[in-house]
């Protein structure tokens, strides 16, 4: 029996606050309902805490399908409306190859190779630098 059957699926994803940034780590497999709950949790946490950045670490995700891809894009768009910037960190190369073939290149999504680089990116660009997904000049 493979280890894959023993790995628990995530029914709830914790949202951690680190200073001005929310850190979310996705791992294993994710129920659709957990992904939708996460989207609501992030929105609510930004609104109450006033953080200016969201880092979503997906290095533990073996696949990202169109549903999860859409949730990530919606989290970024929703965070932008709530004055926070989102960086998706740690996508596996096989996931990137698959998303491109699937036709889902998520052009509005900011990415970094790992969580540290994502934190650097948020610190470097700073809040209010106007380069969010809805910034002027973006198609």
């Amino acid at each position: 029996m493979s280890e894959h059957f023993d790995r628990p699926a995530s029914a709830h994803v914790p949202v951690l606050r680190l200073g001005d940034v929310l850190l979310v780590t996705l791992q294993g497999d994710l129920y659709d309902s957990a992904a939708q709950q996460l989207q609501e949790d992030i929105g609510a946490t930004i609104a109450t805490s006033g953080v200016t950045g969201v880092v979503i670490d997906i290095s533990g995700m073996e696949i990202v399908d169109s549903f999860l891809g859409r949730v990530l894009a919606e989290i970024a768009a929703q965070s932008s409306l709530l004055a926070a910037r989102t960086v998706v960190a740690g996508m596996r190369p096989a996931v990137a190859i698959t998303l491109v073939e699937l036709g889902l290149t998520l052009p509005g999504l900011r990415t970094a190779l790992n969580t540290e680089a994502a934190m650097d990116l948020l610190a470097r660009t700073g809040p209010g630098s106007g380069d969010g997904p809805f910034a002027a000049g973006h198609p």
Partner: protein
Amino acid sequence: MPTSAGVEACLPIRSDMDLVWVRQHVRQAASLLGFGLVEQTKLVTAASELARNTLVHGGGGRMDSARVTRNRAVGLQLAFCDEGPGIADLEQALSDGYTSGGGLGMGLGGARRLVHEFSLESTVGVGTTVTVVSWVSAPPRPREEF
């Protein structure tokens, strides 16, 4: 030579929890048959898209998984069956950006690009079966022009 053990299965698709089982089974079956990491990832992603279609558009159904051979090639065949409303316009359903269920419209057309063989049978009022096959170490699929 890999056998059918751990590959043959019939899994129900009734909830988003079943989607997790479908993905985990396809990952395991693809790994057992000797698919590389990228091909495994494509197969699991395609299965996730098709299983979600079965759930959302077909009102639930099942996935049948089997090891198939042709000449000396070994492959993984996945069939997604539902008894839902069926698809009236197959061309439209397969085109990118078309959606009847509030998604991105990448499900069918996207899944088709992730596997080597793809067939869709649908009868309005009876149901839909999507069958896909990928072969271990098959030559790369020819690319369409961007």
